[in-house]
């Protein structure tokens, strides 16, 4: 089977997925981006680099992560079993540091050492990418500066503490809405001022070319493992995939391996916050417009004047007014269907998974879980049989304990 057209970079426009992507950055950053493009070919693609990175994933991260079949959760979601046959979770929550973010952080920081960079900067929202980058920097011996919006520093205090314990410097950002997008602006400002020495470790499949491609490649380990495990444990490929989408790195990491199998239905789930009809959501693909933010053309949440608006989600990791350009292309080509989940639905999904399977989900991850029943129903009715569903369990909920306790056990 041929890979789907939209995932292939167009040759005459480097860095594009369909009409999305590109390099919308200040001129100073073109040279370091070119350097990174070259490094992908000359370093990342080499056997030596792949072997070193994969060895870290095996011995340090704890990969491969399990594919867990969850019969009790499946039964709780669809008691009749008429639409949901078997339910599998790809357990990224069991990675060292508690989420899939470490796959990419280790890859990029390792790459930075090979490129001769001596300093790492990163942005973080929920703190998961910040913790992952701080971890990778600690184990590979590079100084790490993490930019984090003042708002997020307050609501994600445990992760701020973890980053500091790991030796990273956390810089609180007070500009704009004081959240992830502003942290990203500040990381870009740092990078542009220190291009010779510094690598900017972007955590999501967003940003200027080649970041969306680089991050997707490092995260594709999720889908590659899931495919092999699915063939072994299910004896086949699943009928449907579901993953949550903020910037979209865990989702693209799961999806890419399966895009060329056209019989597999694929679903991304955004955060609709207090409701898709309100102004308090982060459903960029569902409600946004085509625009340019942080270096790439994609969907963005902005007003009629082109000013970026604040996103809202109970999950800090999905609270971002942009989305990776490959997702924009996959939406446009209709290869992937994008749904959304509200704050309340995500909380209910955390509770359900905790009680029926003993897994406390990250709030981000719970957005995907909240749509399992709907996805199974629609796929089953199309196919005339109960379907097998594979969900990305992208992270664990320890970091969300304060929110979870106050909302679920008041």
């Amino acid at each position, binding site marked *: 089977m041929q890979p789907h057209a939209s995932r292939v970079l167009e040759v005459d426009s480097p860095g594009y997925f369909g009409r999305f992507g*590109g390099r919308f950055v200040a001129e100073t*950053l073109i*040279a370091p981006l070119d350097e990174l493009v070259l490094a992908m070919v000359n370093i990342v693609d080499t056997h030596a680099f792949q072997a070193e990175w994969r060895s870290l994933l095996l011995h340090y991260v704890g990969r491969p992560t399990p594919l867990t079949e969850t019969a009790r959760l499946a039964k709780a979601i669809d008691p009749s079993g008429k639409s949901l046959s078997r339910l599998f979770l790809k357990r990224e929550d069991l990675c060292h540091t508690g989420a899939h973010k470490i796959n990419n952080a280790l890859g990029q920081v390792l790459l930075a050492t090979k490129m001769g960079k001596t300093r790492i900067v990163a942005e973080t929202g929920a703190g998961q990418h910040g913790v992952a980058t701080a971890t990778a920097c600690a184990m590979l011996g590079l100084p790490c500066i993490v930019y984090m919006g003042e708002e997020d520093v307050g609501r994600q205090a445990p992760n701020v503490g973890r980053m500091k314990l790991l030796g990273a410097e956390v810089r609180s950002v007070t500009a*704009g809405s004081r959240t992830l997008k502003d942290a990203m602006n500040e990381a870009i400002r740092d990078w542009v001022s220190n291009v010779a020495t510094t690598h900017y470790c972007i955590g999501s499949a967003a940003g200027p070319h080649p970041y969306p491609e680089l991050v997707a490649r490092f995260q594709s380990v999720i889908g590659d493992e899931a495919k092999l495990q699915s063939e072994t444990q299910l004896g086949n490929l699943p009928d449907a995939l579901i993953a949550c989408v903020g910037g979209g790195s865990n989702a693209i990491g799961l999806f890419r391996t399966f895009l060329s199998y056209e019989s597999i239905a694929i679903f991304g789930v955004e955060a609709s916050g207090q409701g898709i009809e309100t102004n308090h959501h982060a459903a960029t693909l569902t409600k946004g417009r085509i*625009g*340019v933010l942080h*270096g790439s053309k994609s969907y963005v949440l*902005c007003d009629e004047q082109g000013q970026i608006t604040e996103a809202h989600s109970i999950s800090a990791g999905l609270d971002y007014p942009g989305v990776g350009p490959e997702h924009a292309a996959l939406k446009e080509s209709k290869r992937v269907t994008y749904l959304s989940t509200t704050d309340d639905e995500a909380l209910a999904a955390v509770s359900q998974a905790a009680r029926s399977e003993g897994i406390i989900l990250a709030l981000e991850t719970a957005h995907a879980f909240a749509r399992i029943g709907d996805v199974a129903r629609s796929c089953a009715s199309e196919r005339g049989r109960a379907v097998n569903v594979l969900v990305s369990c992208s992270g664990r909920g320890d970091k969300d304990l304060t929110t979870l306790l106050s909302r679920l056990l008041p």
Partner: protein
Amino acid sequence: MSARRIVNILNKPRKTLIAYLCVGDPHPSETLALAKAAIAGGADILELGVPFSDPSADGKAIVRASERALAHGTNVDTALGIAKQLRSESAVPIVIFGYYNPLLVYGEERFVKNANDAGVDAILCVDLPFDEPANLRESAREAGISMVPLVAPTTTDARLDALKRHAESQLVDFVYYVSVAGVTGAASIDAVAASARARQVLKILDIPTVVGFGVDSAEKARAAANGVSGVVVGSALVTAIEGAPDAKARILAAEKLVSSLRHGLDA
């Protein structure tokens, strides 16, 4: 026709001084007066900045100015309105400076048409590299509006060659050499080194070149302009305006700051 105004200025024997103002800072009602103050102080070209919510190429001074301007609802039409008023009273060349998203969402063709109607001479889109596909550029060429490409210290000679070829098919009256790998308002630029590289850029491109970023004093202006067409002052002007207590003082501060750079260039 509009491009004539910039070329005429660049052809004059005196060094060109370009003044950047963040439109709407601290209030849209003051921008026209501040622009006139900059002209009175000796600015040859005005750069009217459209504020953006996420100005990742800018340093603290312009970030704060943008937030103040946005708090009063300043937008693309505000900037074009100021340009139009200014054009009705003055032949000073006007550059609209901004980030791509507000122009993209406004509609690139519509923006160019309205900019042309307002008497705008050039567009500088800070996050639109010259080789990134965009309708904005095509519309500008058709309208006879100049695009201002940025060249940075990290820009390679190979890329300058590509820019030179690009400039043959696009109206480019001048290029803007960024003095330092950094954001606007960088504290300590090496103006001598910046002008040395800017002269090389000028030699390779054979297009008039101005130097900007961190030009905040008469001495730096004079050193940075050595052997090239002139300089841009932005953050220092915005900071001078920010530090003045009221509208009248802001006008005086703007004129004084621009005038001091003018004297540096003319000395």
